[in-house]
């Protein structure tokens, strides 16, 4: 017959190496930044990029190693990380508590929501002089500014999480006789947890942005100070080193947050998991 279509097993070769590599997420996550860096290096060496304002990755890397060995970079990194962590806790804890409580209590929600909504749009950087006035130039003001930036992200995400809880779960809790506190513990908090984590990731990102700006004032330590100081004395390479470390810090903290979420929110279905049939 000339009119038929054949479906049969394919020749045993399988996809090419290139195909397989580019399909692997892990490989691409590492390979793509490396390719970008190589392109940047080539462009800088070939003077396509102005090396005064875009130093080649090789020279930035060299400077990074120097600063790491001299201890200057690790010390500054440590200070920034410390401020981010403390500020994060200061902001996230009240945000989660408030989000949970306001999500389940319409009265409290009506009471507090307008105030929170009014403060939120003010750029946190603009609040910084006021905060320094109240808390001084030292560490406290930095924890406060980071805390405020984190608070709003985590709060709104938590609130959304609680408000979006399917009503049926709350019905079950009521029917089974859960007290207010038990409803928070067994339904509200676990249901909102994925949202809380999203809020924490956003909050962590904002914390880093805000701390780098805040480190311009009243301190001689921290990655933000390094960036600002390099700009003041016009040392472009140092600025890039600090910027890259900030970027790595941001990336690393997101990964850490994801790992934490995977541990604490084990029940979220991962893509591709199979159902068990009756």
């Amino acid at each position, binding site marked *: 017959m000339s009119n038929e279509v054949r479906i049969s097993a394919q020749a045993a070769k399988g996809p090419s190496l290139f195909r397989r590599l580019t399909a692997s997420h892990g490989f691409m996550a590492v390979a793509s930044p490396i390719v970008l860096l190589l392109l940047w290096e080539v462009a800088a060496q070939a003077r396509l990029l102005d090396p005064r304002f875009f130093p080649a990755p090789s020279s930035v890397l060299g400077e990074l190693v120097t600063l790491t060995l001299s201890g200057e970079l690790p010390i500054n990194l440590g200070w920034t990380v410390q401020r981010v962590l403390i500020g994060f806790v200061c902001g996230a804890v009240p945000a989660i508590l408030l989000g949970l409580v306001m999500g389940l209590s319409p009265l409290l929600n009506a009471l507090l929501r307008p105030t929170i909504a009014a403060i939120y749009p003010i750029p946190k950087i603009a609040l910084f002089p006021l905060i320094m006035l109240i808390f001084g130039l030292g560490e406290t003001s930095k924890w406060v500014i980071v805390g405020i930036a984190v608070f709003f992200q985590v709060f709104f995400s938590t609130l959304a999480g609680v408000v979006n809880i399917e009503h049926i779960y709350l*019905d079950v809790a009521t029917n089974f006789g859960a007290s207010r506190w*038990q409803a928070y513990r067994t339904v509200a908090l676990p249901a909102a947890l994925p949202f809380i984590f999203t809020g924490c990731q956003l909050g962590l990102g904002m914390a880093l942005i805000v701390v780098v700006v805040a480190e311009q004032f009243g301190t001689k330590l921290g990655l933000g100070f390094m960036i600002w100081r390099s700009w003041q004395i016009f040392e472009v390479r140092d600025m890039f080193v600090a910027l890259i470390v900030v970027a790595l810090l941001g990336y690393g903290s997101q990964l850490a947050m994801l790992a934490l979420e995977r541990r604490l929110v084990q*029940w979220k279905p991962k893509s591709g998991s199979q159902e*068990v*049939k009756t």
Partner: protein
Amino acid sequence: MLGASASNDKRAGPVKISIDGLSKTFASGKLTVTALDAFDLRINEGEFICIVGPSGCGKTTLLRILAGLETPTGGEVRIARGDGNRPLSSMVFQESSVFPWMRVRDNVGYGLDLRGIDRGMRDRTVAHFLELAGLARFGDAWPHQLSGGMKQRVSVARAFANDPEILLMDEPFAALDEQTKIILQQELLRLWSETRKTVLFITHSIDEALVLSDRVLVMSGRPGRVRADIRVDFARPRFVHELKADAGFGRLWHEIWRLLDSSGKLV
């Protein structure tokens, strides 16, 4: 016998649930909906009652009032308490209400956990009902790993494990396919036969009502009233495949069908 009114059946136990003049009106702005109006009903202890009726006849509202999820706007409900300190009711919903963030065994033990039952007792109870509901192998599974039918099993097991005075079920198997439905009906009967609790079960399936219940209440449209109260006398333990072969089954089915058909659409 078949089709006889159930209210003066001397074989029934003492009255468990007494509903008098129950009314419920929902008001939303200018719109008022009367779900129940002067509703009366007596349910005896240990009875398995099925309620069938068109949509909007107030059957879900009735169950939600019994479950403590709504308050009546008129009339009253009295539920007789047995000995011991049992929770009043446990409800099984039509949609999946199994908590996705708890493993199966923690879901089943939810009511016990809330009441602070000691660990050992709780674990034993949970194991018992997992076994009875055919979930013994799935105690540590997460709900997202289960199919719809499995999740409803968990829901049912959870309600039974809580050891309530009455069990309320709002079309728990409606979303499942025919074969799963039959399997779960059989499972439910098995679970129920152990303690013979008082059950109110809403369904749109006449088949299901006849398989499960001692009495079928046919309700009329909004506002809900009991149109007919039909005794279902098949001997227990019941098996679905046997019942379907019984001649009386078809006749009862038709009787209920006519009652429903004349009061409005079935679904």
